[in-house]
């Protein structure tokens, strides 16, 4: 199906919504700011509604879908590794102690990003068909 007028209109709505919402945040202290934020969020919701509606028009894609649970596990592992690092900085005051917890956290994040998520991505990969 490729690019369409609907896509162009929905992207325009998205830009309008983002702009209005940002203006609302910038001037939140004023009544107009609050109004702009609410209006912007409504327009954004509308834009995403249209995105979802026109998505099937794209046609069949070369993608069989990825197992959601494994994807979630991968994302959680990646972020959890970072959490280990942040909290690990306060478990020890020594450089070596902090180095150790940081490396452990990095390893956990790598498991998420370079092991779990690629497994999820390749589970039903198009090239396996």
């Amino acid at each position: 199906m490729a690019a369409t007028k609907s896509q162009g209109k929905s992207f325009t709505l998205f830009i309008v919504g983002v702009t209005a919402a940002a203006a609302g945040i910038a001037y939140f202290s004023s009544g107009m700011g609050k109004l702009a934020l609410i209006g912007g969020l409504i327009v954004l919701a509308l834009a995403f509604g249209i995105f979802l509606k026109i998505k099937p028009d794209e046609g069949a894609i070369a993608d069989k879908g990825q197992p959601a649970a494994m994807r979630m596990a991968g994302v959680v592992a990646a972020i959890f590794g970072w959490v280990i690092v942040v909290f690990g900085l306060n478990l020890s005051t020594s450089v070596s102690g902090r180095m150790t917890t940081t490396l452990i956290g990095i390893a956990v994040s790598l498991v998420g990003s370079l092991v779990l998520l690629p497994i999820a991505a390749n589970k039903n990969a198009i090239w396996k068909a």
Partner: protein
Amino acid sequence: MKIFRMASATCALAILILAGAGTVARADAAPSASAAELKDAASKAPTTSTLAAGDPGGTITGTVSDVPVSDSKAGLSLGDVANQVGQNKIGINFTWTLLCGFLVMFMQAGFAMVESGLCRVKNANHTYMMNFFVYGCGLFAYWILGFAIQMGGAAGNGNLGGLQPLVGEHTLSLFGKTWGIFGQSGMFLSGHSYDVGVMVIFLFQMVFMDTALTIVTGACAERWKFLTFSVSSVLMGAITYPLFANWAWGGGWLAQLGTNLGLGKGYADFAGSGVVHSVGGVTALAVALIIGPRIGKFNRNGSANAIIGHDISAVLIGCFILAFGWFGFNPGSTLGASAAGCLRIGSVAVNTMLAGCTGTFGALLYMWSMKGKPDASMSANGLLAGLVAITAPSGFVNPIASGIIGLIAGVLVCLSVAFVENTLKVDDPVGAISVHGACGLWGVISVGLFADGTSNYGGAWNGVSGSVTGLFYGDASQLVAQLVGVSTLIGFVFGFSYALNWVLDIFLGHRVSAESEVAGLDLPEMGQLGYPEFVFTPEPATMSVAAHAAVA
């Protein structure tokens, strides 16, 4: 004897009083002398008739008569001269930073040529257009929101006049310390941020942000739906990039690791191996994992097919444009050419070109030795890898370290490309994940290893006095700070980018239809071929499978 002592004491006292009086008299006379000197200089300034005769040697243009006088009756004063000196310093720094920003902006052309050249001819227009429109998407998003998140609390930069309007960092108290989380002032560049210094830092930071965004387009080329690319780019320019950039450059918690926890000088990333390139690289990995490989990239047994780009000349010329732009990227990151250690710009520039050189050597020699040919596209990636890696340490290391950092990056990019393709089975048409992600992370780590402690940007970095010093020069804690940055990139930034783009995949879908992909994206997505007069040659069977076969 007693009389003699009294007389001596009286004489000594008299001498002391006279000496003091002399000092006072000289002190009183000082302004008069200076004023007289100023008056004298003004009287000797070339007259308009002298200047009208022309100044081919440049010896009489720019004199005391060019210094603005605040009170014409009193004439030129020391205050006038001092004000002019101050404005000259800021003027030099503004000019330097803006010119470097213009160079970085031109890197978009380099990225467009490299990425498009490495893609097939049927996708040339689409790839060029992504590189073109990412500039608009990023700039717009950064103007309305991103800049405020990144720099909204970054007041205090003396090089650019203080940036005092940017005083809105939102903080969080954790473990008894206060940590910066995001900035809050500067949205739409309105209100107090309508300021000359803020405009300069906005332009410079904006072009950096856009560099990060354009990295993703390379990894997802030849199959990314233009609509989803546009929305994703807006969100990355508004949220993802500015958040990490605030933590590193905007006074956020990574920069505070030094002041709050004593970890070196805090996370140190001179010009953005982490902030720009790794953010782009890990986001590219996240989106590439979601979007999947191109049709025909992998065989059923998992082996990869080489999908050759259509224009190696564009790739290599694009690389030189990027290398040229990098002279804005790294030396420009001093944010000035006058005061606060800014004269190190020469070192920064030389480090940059050396690392690019050794990066090229690393990749070319590796490919030539291991694969038998001095592969052009990998050599190009080697140059970029060296430049990416030296971006963070360029302001802190010596030329020998730069050469080593670049050389390692050149080899690393070859290994990483093979790992991403053969082990992860992730399709990255231009090698962006390896060039910017892997080598960007290496650059961040290399600061913690090679920083030699000789830099002096105003006597402190991230609020900690002294110079950034790495493990090899005696400060292991700096390496920990760098690794915390690495963890944030591969943990938080990657995870956040993946989650954000997963949501976009649900609502919009990242991938074009198989039919469009096989036909090439130029006509279905852009409505126009990149090269309408080219005669297409048939692709190998693996890459020209029918659309129905690709989705079956």
